[in-house]
């Protein structure tokens, strides 16, 4: 079985400062990991994915994440927050077996202060 733990339910940063959203995973096999973002009343948009290639993954809108197997972590970072980054962020791991349904973390709500 696999699971994902997002360590912070809420993160607040000032515009222009770095963003760090933390995620730890548990999996009995080599996982595929994703970060999705959800803006209010919208579906989920893929930010980036890790699939056992490079451990540092670059995504859209300046976000990136580093896969650290020794720490079972996949933290999401951005050097400089923008007001438009305010949203809910989900760390996600794929399931095992044929269906590959996603297992979601509980989400981190990012607030960006002017």
């Amino acid at each position: 079985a696999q699971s994902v733990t997002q360590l912070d339910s809420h993160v607040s940063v000032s515009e222009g400062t770095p963003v760090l959203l933390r995620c730890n995973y548990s999996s009995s096999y080599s996982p595929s990991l994703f970060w999705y973002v959800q803006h209010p009343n919208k579906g989920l948009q893929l930010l980036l994915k890790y699939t056992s290639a490079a451990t540092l993954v670059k995504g859209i809108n300046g976000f990136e994440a580093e896969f650290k197997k020794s720490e079972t972590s996949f933290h999401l970072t951005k050097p400089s927050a923008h007001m438009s980054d305010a949203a809910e962020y989900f760390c996600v791991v794929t399931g095992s077996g044929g269906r590959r349904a996603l297992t979601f973390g509980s989400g981190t709500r990012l607030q960006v202060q002017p």
Partner: protein
Amino acid sequence: GAGVSQSPSNKVTEKGKDVELRCDPISGHTALYWYRQSLGQGLEFLIYFQGNSAPDKSGLPSDRFSAERTGGSVSTLTIQRTQQEDSAVYLCASSPGTGGGQPQHFGDGTRLSIL
């Protein structure tokens, strides 16, 4: 190109009524998933379709929930005799296949409110 389309975007109905939620996946995507997003429960998997294979229904919470996918494209999620705890956002996603690196593309969801 067109993304995953869900309808209706909002649905309000009385307890005990049946509801149907529709999902139009991205053209050519063989895998289709339904998820439910509710307060306190987060995002949970409901059901999965892949090509012509039998669907994986292991996430359906009760026998009041069912889904079908016609012609390998459009899917309908049906909830019979709705209960207040069915109130949630129902999200549909599709992907080109089921390889581990295949990201899922989500629709904007249907917000279901049971009075």
